[in-house]
């Protein structure tokens, strides 16, 4: 129990710091930036659970993000469902899509790049279907009616939105930390490290991977639900577009795959870089993608364990005797 509490402490500290931001500033620019960064952290945490812990690198998490967004929006607009249950149903729908894609991909034994390609294909199919199907508003998209009341999960101020996305990120952090310490988590990591060895030790690898995909999809779908509620507009390109699949994998890879804080760190760093680029270069289209690409190459080449890995190394050096630490750092 004690170990459990201790492992949650860093999460509480990080959340407390982030929760204090609205006390310092209520600037819409700052909050807008943080809301979007936290949204990416949430979506990335979903990817991280499957890709970072399970080693199944999806290139199509847009499938879950978009499903969450569309279900939340369509239930409200076309069926008059209240925003709160619509939000919850969006998460369930995302999980269901995860289970279906997972079952199809994993039962047919797809691994590695084949799995990545199949997930990308599913997301693209959903995007194309959403861009022509009447229920999604086809090319026009879906607009959620403005109704600035908490009952409708809409707010005049950015602060409540900020706290909601922070709460969702909090849940995802705790969830992943808990998974790390369960049998399911141990089996999931075993699947990542060596699938045959895991099978020989009694791990039903297909079931573990499908379970991870469902959880992963649910977390990412929550991001989609939030997106629909925050921006009140989605179309096929936003909901199922490859942009979100890329954001979902970029944040954890930059931050540190298979670590609890990787997606949050990565999202904050990547989004800060993106903003800095905009300040320096104006709104030149595609420039942020150039930056993302460069960062990704640098991280994969020089820090394969991401920022979290770098921090862990730094801490280890810090613990050693100061003399000689620099010399060793040069060798490492």
């Amino acid at each position, binding site marked *: 129990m004690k170990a459990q509490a201790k492992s949650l402490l860093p999460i509480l500290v990080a959340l407390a710091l982030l929760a204090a931001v609205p006390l310092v500033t209520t600037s819409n620019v700052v909050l807008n930036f943080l809301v979007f960064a936290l949204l990416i952290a949430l979506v990335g945490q979903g990817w991280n659970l499957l890709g970072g812990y399970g080693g199944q690198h999806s290139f199509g998490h847009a499938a879950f993000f978009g499903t969450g967004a569309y279900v939340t929006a369509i239930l409200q607009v076309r069926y008059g469902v209240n925003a709160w249950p619509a939000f919850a149903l969006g998460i369930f729908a995302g999980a269901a899509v995860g289970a279906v894609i997972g079952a199809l991909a994993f039962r047919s034994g797809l691994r590695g790049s084949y799995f990545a390609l199949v997930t990308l294909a599913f997301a693209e199919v959903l995007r194309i279907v959403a861009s022509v199907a009447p229920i999604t508003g086809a090319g026009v998209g879906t607009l959620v009616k403005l109704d600035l009341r908490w009952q409708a999960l809409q707010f005049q101020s950015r602060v409540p939105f900020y706290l909601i996305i922070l709460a969702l990120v909090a849940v995802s952090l705790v969830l992943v930390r808990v998974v790390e*310490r*369960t*049998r399911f988590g*141990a*089996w999931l*990591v*075993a699947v*990542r*490290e*060596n699938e*045959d*060895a*895991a*099978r*020989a*030790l*009694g*791990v*039903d*690898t297909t079931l573990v991977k499908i379970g991870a995909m469902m959880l992963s999809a649910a977390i990412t779908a929550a991001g989609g639900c939030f997106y629909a509620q925050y921006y009140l507009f989605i179309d096929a390109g936003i909901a199922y577009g490859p942009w979100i699949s890329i954001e979902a994998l970029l944040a954890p890879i930059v931050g540190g795959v298979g670590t609890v804080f990787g997606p949050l760190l990565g999202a904050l760093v990547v989004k800060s870089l993106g903003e800095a680029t905009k300040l320096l270069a104006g709104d030149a289209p595609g420039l942020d993608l150039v930056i993302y690409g460069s960062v990704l190459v640098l991280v994969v080449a020089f820090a394969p364990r991401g920022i979290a890995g770098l921090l862990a190394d730094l801490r280890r050096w810090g613990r050693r005797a100061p003399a000689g630490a620099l010399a060793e750092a040069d060798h490492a």
Partner: protein
Amino acid sequence: MPEPLLRVDTVSKRFGGLLAVDRASFDAPAGRITALIGPNGAGKTTLFAIIAGFLRPSAGRVRYDGADITGLPPHRLARRGIARTFQIVQPFAGLTVAENIAVGAHLHHASRARALAAAAAVARTVDLDGELAKPAAALTVAGRKRLELARALAIEPKLLLLDEVLAGLNPSEVRDMVPVIRAIAARGVTIVMIEHVMQAVMSLAGHVFVLAEGRVIAEGAPQRIAADPRVVEAYLGHGAAQRMMGAAR
């Protein structure tokens, strides 16, 4: 006479034009150490993969613990008590030794603390308890072989399939490992071992089956097998046995 714990009954495995296992049959009685020997490419590892559920036989049946287990997937067989080690060790390289063993221990222990405690206990039986916190990737060859063994033991098997756990070890490491395997058998675990280190086969196995070109060509007590002309021929080529006899005369 009771049915043996494991009965491989005229099993064949064909890969395209290659008949890797050709109507092989053997029994492994409960509580004993049975050895499977034979030249490289004889089909021993393929046979292990079939028993452990990693491959489906093209023909024949595998019976275990009174039931037909042919074609069941590996994780189901592991739950029934069949553990295997891999000839080419397959550690979870990114995990510590303790976490590696705990993956196996989780089969019977849901809680992480219990699984880690069970892992520590298993590590003691193979003399790995000093290295629990090390990353698996940092182990020596001998250490990795022990880890392979420890992980398999962690699922509390009734039948342990050891695929060349002594290969790649130096003579003193082999001498250290032999009592470890004997102690596992003494606890009532039935062992089938593929092994090239004849010194170990002689001292450990009660019964030896010789596989060559996918077929069981001889069986018997280890001392008798070593003198069997068919076995000598399988290893050294046609006519070798005769020449050796001639030289002896």
